């Protein structure tokens, strides 16, 4: 494709897709379900859905249909479990895609939408220009599209759909739970693990730097090789964090890179997956570093670069005893007062390895 020659010509072509939203009639199956209930699957569609799933790309549905018969048909084809938050209704598809993005808590600019009708694709493009629209006639070549080919497929990618399914269960229980938030969190039996990154963690670490915008303090992205150097360097500490609870594993969900000088440790990067928002794990990572810095007798600093979505991380720093000390263009330097550190929250078991 010519757009590949100049990566600046079309920013959309570079962005990796995290979720593909499917139309049903004449896209997943041949024919219109409400007209004939004996529809047949389009050739190769099962393979495509399974391949996308194994690449860690989530899938959902935006279809103008009656919900129950369409879901029953997907069940009969053995496909229902592949689709998260399916939107089968008579609303605009642009609006349905927005709903899915909100439910999954991922950016609309990481969506692709496949439909046989130009009208639907244009309606989506009109209100959501960042969504990659694919004509269902190109079904058989879609797996070759660069945005649908993640650079790495990690152990976490292949499990991604299951992790989101556990999230749906957690959310349902959380919504129906009456009482303080911490009491709910305590019912999850969460175990948080923070360990020095090993070589086998690096692909996932790189994936996290690329995929995570919202809960990311600086947005620095590092290649596999750079991360591998940090891992082995005396001047750096690279930690990877994992979280599990009674519903299953969240996988590796956080990354922490520290530059270590004789007198000052600087947090270059602190990020975590949006799936663990409101679990308090950012604070746990910072508390661990505050303890370590106190023990080692070094000062603790952190860099922060604001994008329009990572304010949550600024708050995390500010409410964990960091204060701004310096500002260089868009980069803010904060320093911790290293006052007495509160113990880890009671609702979480913390393992430092």
């Amino acid at each position, binding site marked *: 494709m010519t757009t590949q020659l100049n990566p600046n010509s079309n920013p959309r072509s570079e962005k990796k897709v995290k979720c593909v939203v499917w139309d049903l009639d004449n896209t997943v199956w041949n024919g219109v379900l409400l007209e004939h209930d004996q529809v047949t699957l389009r050739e190769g569609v099962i393979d495509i859905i399974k391949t996308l799933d194994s690449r860690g790309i989530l899938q959902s549905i935006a279809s103008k249909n009656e919900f129950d018969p369409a879901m029953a048909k997907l069940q009969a084809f053995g496909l229902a479990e592949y689709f998260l938050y399916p939107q089968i209704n008579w609303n605009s598809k642009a609006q349905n895609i927005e709903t899915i993005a909100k439910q999954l808590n991922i950016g609309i600019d990481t969506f692709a939408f496949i439909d046989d009708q130009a009208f639907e694709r244009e309606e989506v493009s009109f209100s959501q220009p960042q969504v990659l629209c694919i004509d269902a006639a190109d079904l058989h070549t879609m797996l070759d599209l660069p945005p649908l080919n993640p650079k790495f497929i990690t152990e976490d990618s292949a499990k991604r759909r299951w992790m989101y399914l556990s999230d749906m269960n957690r959310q349902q229980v959380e919504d129906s739970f009456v009482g303080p*938030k911490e009491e709910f969190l305590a019912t999850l039996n969460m175990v948080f693990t923070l360990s020095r990154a090993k070589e086998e963690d690096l692909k996932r670490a790189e994936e996290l730097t690329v995929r995570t915008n919202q809960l990311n303090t600086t947005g620095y992205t590092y290649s596999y090789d750079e991360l591998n150097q940090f891992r082995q360097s005396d001047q750096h500490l690279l930690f990877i964090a994992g979280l599990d609870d009674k519903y299953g594993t969240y996988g590796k969900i956080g990354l922490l890179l520290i530059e270590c000088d004789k007198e000052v440790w600087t947090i270059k990067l602190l990020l975590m997956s949006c799936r663990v928002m409101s679990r308090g794990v950012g604070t746990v990572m910072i508390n661990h570093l505050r303890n370590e810095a106190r023990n080692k007798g070094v000062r603790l600093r952190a860099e922060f670069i604001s994008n329009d979505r990572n304010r*949550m991380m600024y708050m*995390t720093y*500010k409410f964990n005893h960091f204060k701004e000390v310096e500002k260089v263009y868009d980069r803010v330097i904060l320093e911790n007062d290293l006052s007495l550190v509160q113990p880890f929250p009671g609702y979480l078991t913390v393992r430092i390895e």
Partner: protein
Amino acid sequence: MTTTDILEKTKSFLAQFISVQVGNDDDLFASGLVNSLFAMQLVLFVEKEFGVKVENDDLDYDNFRTLNAIVGFIQRKMK
């Protein structure tokens, strides 16, 4: 909006997180009643409920440490 209105709304928000009674001048953070996760939810509550913008410079424990401090902060921002 009166001081009492702001205080009552903030109190009922706090009640979702804290099961014990807190006095208007009790330090919410020192007592270990709440953590930094709560602090962020509190900021979002203040912005949404009272329609004020909490700037980066306002993100300071002193503005959120006690019920009275929170009410005072909201009143300053609403002016």
